[in-house]
C-alpha cells in the first residue's frame, strides 16, 4: 500500500484559521461555517420568546407604557403568556395582529 505522507501534499479544501495571530492551514467543519454572526439585541425592540399565537393585544400605536405593563397575550406551550413592556416608553410600531402565529424571536413591538 501507498505510504501515508503528511496530508498537506494532497489537494484538500484547506482554509486558514487565525488563532493568536497565527494563520493555520486546516479544514473547517460545517458547524463552524454555518455559525451565525452575533447580533446585539436592540433594546427598543420586543420579540416573541416562544413560537405561538397572538390572542390579545392590549396597547395601540402611541400608547405610553411602563415597565411591566401587559402588552399582549401569546398562547404558546399550552399557556397564555403575558408579554410585558421591558422598558418605559411609547409604542412606535406593532408588527402583529390578533390571530397571528409568530415564530420564536419574531419582532412584536418597536418602542420610540
Amino acid at each position, binding site marked *: 500500500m501507498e505510504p*501515508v505522507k503528511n*496530508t498537506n501534499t494532497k489537494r484538500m479544501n484547506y482554509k486558514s484559521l487565525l*488563532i493568536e495571530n497565527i494563520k493555520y492551514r486546516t479544514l473547517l467543519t460545517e458547524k463552524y461555517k454555518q455559525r451565525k454572526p452575533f447580533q446585539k439585541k436592540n433594546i427598543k425592540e420586543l420579540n416573541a420568546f416562544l413560537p405561538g399565537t397572538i390572542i390579545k393585544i392590549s396597547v395601540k400605536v402611541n400608547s405610553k407604557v411602563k415597565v411591566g405593563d401587559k402588552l399582549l397575550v401569546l398562547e404558546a406551550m399550552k399557556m397564555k403568556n403575558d408579554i410585558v413592556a421591558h422598558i418605559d416608553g411609547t409604542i412606535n410600531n406593532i408588527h402583529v395582529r390578533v390571530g397571528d402565529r409568530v415564530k420564536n424571536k419574531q419582532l412584536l413591538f418597536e418602542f420610540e
Partner: protein
Amino acid sequence: MGLKRKTADLKKRMREAVKGGGSQAIKKQKAIGKRTARERILSILDNKSFHEYDLFVEHSGRDFDMDKKFLPGDGVITGTGTIYGHPVCIYAQDFTVAGGSLGWAHAKKITKIMDHAMKLKIPIIGINDSGGARIQEGVNALAGYGEIFYRNTQASGVIPQISVILGPCAGGAVYSPALTDFVFVVDQVSKMFITGPEVIKTVLGEEISMEDLGGAWVHSETTGNAHFFANNEDECVSQIKELISFIPWNNEHKAEPFPKKPPKTRQFNIEDVIPADPKLPYDVRHVIKAISDDSEFLEVMEHFAANIVIGFARIAGQTVGYVANQPLVLAGVLDVDSSDKAARFIRYCDSFNIPLVTLVDLPGYLPGIDQEHAGVIRHGAKLLYAYSEATVPKITVIMRKAYGGGYIAMCSHHLRADFVCAWPTAEIAVMGPEGAANIIFRNEIKNAENPEEVRKQKIKEYKDKFSNPYVAAAYGYIDAVIEPKETRKFLIHALEISGQKSQIVPVKKHGIPPF
C-alpha cells in the same frame, strides 16, 4: 399427555411466538430495508449462542379492547448470548408487533434483562425500534420508561451499555440511549427526536423531514448524540462486535489482551506524517495508526467535533483510549463540542480501566463570540475535570503545539498525567510566539522606527527561547524529550510499568462535574 405431546405443544407455542407480528408486518419491515428483531440479535451474537428469555410474556393492557389482542412476546425479544465468546445480555424491540410500542410487560422484560446484566456483570446491548409509548396503557407505559432510565443510570460505569437505534426512537424513549455509553445509528434507518416533524409543523409551522430533524447523520455530525455511524445494518453489526472486542465485561476487569502486533510502519511512518511547519495540517489518525498494534484504530464519534479524535486501539495487545487534537480540522482547537466529546470519553475509559493516551498538538481554544456565549468556559472545564478525576494510567505525548490553557487541559503533569513526553518539535508556552511577542514587547515595537521589523525580530527571539520543549523540561513538567520514532517504545514501557497503578481519591459520594 405424554412427554412427546407436551413437547410438541411447547414447539407449537414457540412457533407461534417467534412469528412476531406476522408475515404481513415482517414484509413491511423488510420493504424499508430493515431486518426483524430476531434477525438482528442473531446477526450480532455468535452462532447458536442466543438463549431467549420471556418468550411467553403477555401484555397487560386491559383498556380500549387491548385485552382481546395477542402481542407475541409483547414486542420485545430479550436474552443472553456471546460475541467472540464475550457474554452479553441483549434485547431488541420488535417493530412488527404493535409498532414495537412500549407497554408495561414490554418494559418489564427489558428491566429484567438489565437487572440480569447487572447481576452477572456483563455488557447489555439494547436494539431500539419502537413507535414509542403504548398509548392504551397510559401511565403504565411511562412507568416502564422510568424504570429503564433508572437502571441505565445505576448501571452506568458498572457494565458497558450499548444502544443500537434501528428504527424510530422518539419522545421519552430517546433518553435510554442517551444515558448509555455508546449509541449506534444507521443511515436512513435511525430516527431520534423528542418531538417529531408533525408536532413541529403544527406548533411552529416549520417543515422539516425526519431525516433532517433526527436522522443518523444529524446525530453523528451535528448533535453528537450518536457515537457510531454506519451506512447499513451489516456495517453497524461489525462496528458493535469490534467495540465489544476492545472493552472489558465490567468495571472490575480490564479489557481482554490480544496478541501483540507491530504497526504497519511501511504505510504509516511517523516521520513522514508530521510536517515540520507548525502551521501546516496533518491527519493525527495517521500518527495513532503509526504507533498502535496492526495500525488498527476504532474511532468513536468520527463525524462530530472532528477537531478532536477519540477512540480505541491496542498497544502491545492492551486496549488504550486515545484522545488526540486533530490539526486537520479547525487547526485542532478545543471548543465547546470537542471538550464535551473528549471529556465523556475520558470518563468512560476511567470507569472501565482503559489507560489513556493523549496526543497533543493544539493552538488553544477557538476564539469567537459564539463560543463564549455557548458556554466554552463550563464545557471546556469538563475536560479539566475528566482528566483530573481519571485514575487510570495517563500518558501524554506533546507532538507540536501546546499553548496556554490547551497545554494544561490536554492531560499535563499538573492534572496528574503519569508520563509526559515531548517530541523535539514541541512548543510548550503560555501562548503562541506572535501573540506573546506583541504583548511582552508592546512598547518596544510601538516606539521603534520600524515597528514591523522589530516585531518580526521579537517574535523570532521569543520563538528561539520558548518555542521548544526544553523550558518545560527544565522545570520537570515533561519527563523526557524523545524522537518521534521512539513513541511506541515509550508507550509500551509506560503501560507495562503502570499496570499496578492505584491512586487514593478523597472519599466522596460523587463529584459535581460542570455538566
